[in-house]
């Protein structure tokens, strides 16, 4: 059977893109939640909690 390197690379590239994309989504969301709201000191009522 032919080696079909294109299929192998496609599968690994897809896995890398999906996993890295999800990781990036988590990191970005964490940054958003940890960013202080303008005009409110971190930890103030209604302000998002700081990273522990």
């Amino acid at each position, binding site marked *: 059977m032919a080696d079909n390197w294109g*299929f*192998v690379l496609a*599968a*690994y590239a897809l*896995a890398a893109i*999906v996993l890295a994309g999800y*990781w990036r989504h988590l990191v970005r*969301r*964490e940054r958003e939640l940890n960013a202080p709201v303008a005009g409110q000191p971190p930890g103030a009522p209604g302000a998002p909690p700081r990273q522990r």
Partner: protein
Amino acid sequence: MTRVLGWLAALALLAGLGMAFAVAPREATQGTVQRIMYVHVPSVWVAYCAFVVVFVASIAYLATRAEAADRLAHASAEVGVLFTGLTIATGSIWGKPTWGTWWTWDARLTSVAVLFVMYVGYLLLRGMIDEGERAARYAAVLGVVAALNIPLVHFSVLWWRTLHQPPSLMKPGPSSMPPVIVRALLVNFAAFALLYLYFVAKRVRLLRLEAEAGA
């Protein structure tokens, strides 16, 4: 701790790539395309584990109403859906050169597709109900029911005559694969399992932050 897990997962993934491309031999029948197995099979094993965690955490939530159990179930379901999607996509890419088709309504493929849809439904259900406690309760019931599909997926290749090959490792009796291929598979499974733990730890933390921000 989460950061250490992340680095461990990254190193293990590199080791897994090394095992898949440098250590494991070219398979005699399928050729190089068989190397897709080192991402396809660990993905589905991790997805099984993720949904078993959803099952256990859902039972724990129904018994104790502990928010931590609900957050674990939610995070594990999300990461499980990610790995199930990856399983389906890589399986499809593997199927084209070996079976001559991207997709067929074979028992294994269909049961995995049903599993995927059930847990996407689980996540949609959570998103549709605004009231947190009710969403958690309904999701927990679905998390218990949906887990019944896991043995169906695994044994589908034994119970029905299908195009998908029967399991080579998770079956009674010795493995039909050479030890070097088994080792490469297990290293990749360990890497994916570490990545699962890292993602779930991070997602659980995010869910807690979101709950605190919304309170």
